[in-house]
């Protein structure tokens, strides 16, 4: 969790210094979910995410240096600078991608789950999305098919109560995301996303069942989005948490490990990642033309 926290804090600084440009969404506050879920997975399990994907990518095994280089638009980035923050992909570690389209990866996760089932393995697909995605048609189309075909896909919803700049109450009458899928034959659970242990326990139950041929499942994680929707969002639409209130929801603080060594090691790793990223050159323009079509 500290690796993600340190990484996101560094990205925030670099964004404010204009060294990471474009649209950036930080997952400070979401580390418990990223680690609770991805830490239980193998490289051959497939993970998809949304636009707030840095934490998921790193927790799934993407090297921070490569992620940072991507955000800085360098050749050494995960996607050689072609994708950026919202389009991170690390196939080697089973991270099939972030997306800028709300809910856009949910059907893709179904495809990966179907492929896993057809190949006869016990790998699974996981897709992260926010509470705002649940009102979109693409979500329920996917839930119906996943349930109908009993696919080994675990839908992980990070419900932070906000979809961009509006609270959940402006989007729907149904407070709990798990209630939105209630009509469908799909296992569902709501957990405190700020408690990494609780997330891990709940997710592992679903994971074991999916590996054994079960699925789909929905894990709703109640979280707190520390920052704005994007870096630069002045957040006039919500009240900032006081420091003591933040400590009570912060997944790192709640884990209650007093050893500073973990934090220091993480910060060192991120310092090194920044050095490596900076050393990477900007990509050559010819790269683009080569990658429009697969050969």
């Amino acid at each position, binding site marked *: 969790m500290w690796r993600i926290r340190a990484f996101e804090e560094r990205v925030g600084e670099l964004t404010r210094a204009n060294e990471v440009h474009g649209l950036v969404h930080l997952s400070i506050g979401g580390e418990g979910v990223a680690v609770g879920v991805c830490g239980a997975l193998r490289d051959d399990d497939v993970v998809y995410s949304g636009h707030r994907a840095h934490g998921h990518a790193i927790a799934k095994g993407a090297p921070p240096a490569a992620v940072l280089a991507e955000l800085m638009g360098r050749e050494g980035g995960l996607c050689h600078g072609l994708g950026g923050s919202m389009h991170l992909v690390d196939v080697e570690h089973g991270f099939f991608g972030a997306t800028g389209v709300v809910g856009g990866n949910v059907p893709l996760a179904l495809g990966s789950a179907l492929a896993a089932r057809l190949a006869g393995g016990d790998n699974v697909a996981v897709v992260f999305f926010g509470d705002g995605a649940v009102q979109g048609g693409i979500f329920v189309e996917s839930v119906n098919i996943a349930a109908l075909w009993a696919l080994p896909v675990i839908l992980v919803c990070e419900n932070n109560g906000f979809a961009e700049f509006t609270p959940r109450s402006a989007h729907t*009458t149904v407070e709990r995301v798990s209630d939105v899928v209630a*009509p469908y034959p799909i296992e569902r659970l709501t957990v405190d996303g700020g408690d990494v242990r609780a997330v891990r326990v709940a997710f592992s139950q679903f994971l074991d069942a999916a590996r054994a041929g079960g699925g789909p499942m929905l894990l709703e994680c109640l979280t707190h989005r520390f920052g704005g929707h994007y870096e630069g969002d002045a957040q006039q639409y919500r009240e900032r948490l006081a420091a003591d209130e933040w400590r009570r929801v912060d997944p790192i603080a709640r884990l209650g490990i007093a050893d500073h060594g973990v934090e220091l090691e993480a910060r060192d790793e991120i310092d090194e990642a920044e050095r490596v990223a900076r050393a990477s050159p900007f990509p050559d323009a010819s790269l683009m033309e080569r990658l429009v079509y697969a050969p």
Partner: protein
Amino acid sequence: MPEPLDTQRLTWMLTQMLRIREFEERVKRTFEEHPGVIRGHTHLADGAEASIVGALAALRPDDHVLTTYRCHGYPLALGTDPNAMMAEIYGRSDGLCGGYGGSMHLTDTARGFLGTSGIVGQGIPHAVGAAYAAQISGRGQVVLSFFGDGASKQGAFHESLNIASLWKLPVVFVMENNNYNVVTRTEQEDANAAAGEPLAVKATAYSMPGTTVDGGDPVAVYETVGAAVDRARSGEGPTLVESLVYRLSAHGNIIAPPGIPLHFPEHEAITVFGNAEEYEAAKRGDPVPRFRGRLVSDGTISAEEADAIAEQVQAEMQGAVDFGLKSPFPAPEAAVNFVYA
């Protein structure tokens, strides 16, 4: 609670059911008797008359109705001229829409039948928009949104019911579940149906009541939809009504390129699933003769009156066919009219 139905209203309901049945029969017969007159794809409502008429009986004249490509039944009950409807299906200039839309896009704004999309599910958000308009216009109008069970798997269904519930819009969603989507049975494509559950359970995701009703009983439909209409009209928001119907014709006429005569094949229960028994049972339970029999046997009307209505209806719909056949085609250059308002 909706007003109890008196003899006059019950007779009206039977008449409308007979009119819809006769109209659809004439459309179907046109394929045999006048080949080439109907082009493209047409979808009939025979079997759904009780559901259509029972639902529409609950409306006021200034309410609005939107539906799907299977749209012939509703305007008939709303009072649209069957001559204009048949002429439209025959592509003539006296058609309801001047020949511009055809069978799948019937529109009669004067009677609150606002505009029909042929794309599964996409008319549901249109109905929600009309309900939003009704809410802020403040005249107490309600909107009925008709669609099939297949549409409930479309994202548009989910998004529309969520918003209608959130804004407490005066709309009643009537899902006619005929258990088929073309050649697919509902349990093959719907997780709830596969689990043996009624589709009305989907309503629980939208904080709205969901209820299932026998769509073959027009009075039951009237009472169920009527209660939902009252709820909507009083500002309490939408309802999902699942109306169980059986479509007595195939999904539509065959799809074929020009040169091959179009016709209505047998029902998919027989041609795809080999289940003639299911189809025969549905025919035995045909809601139109069933309702006629009920009204005669409980003394609401006499057999003679019922026969007289049937005769009148046959003459009316024969007239529609004659009108349509005699109606001229639009001038070719009319094709570029109405591109822009």
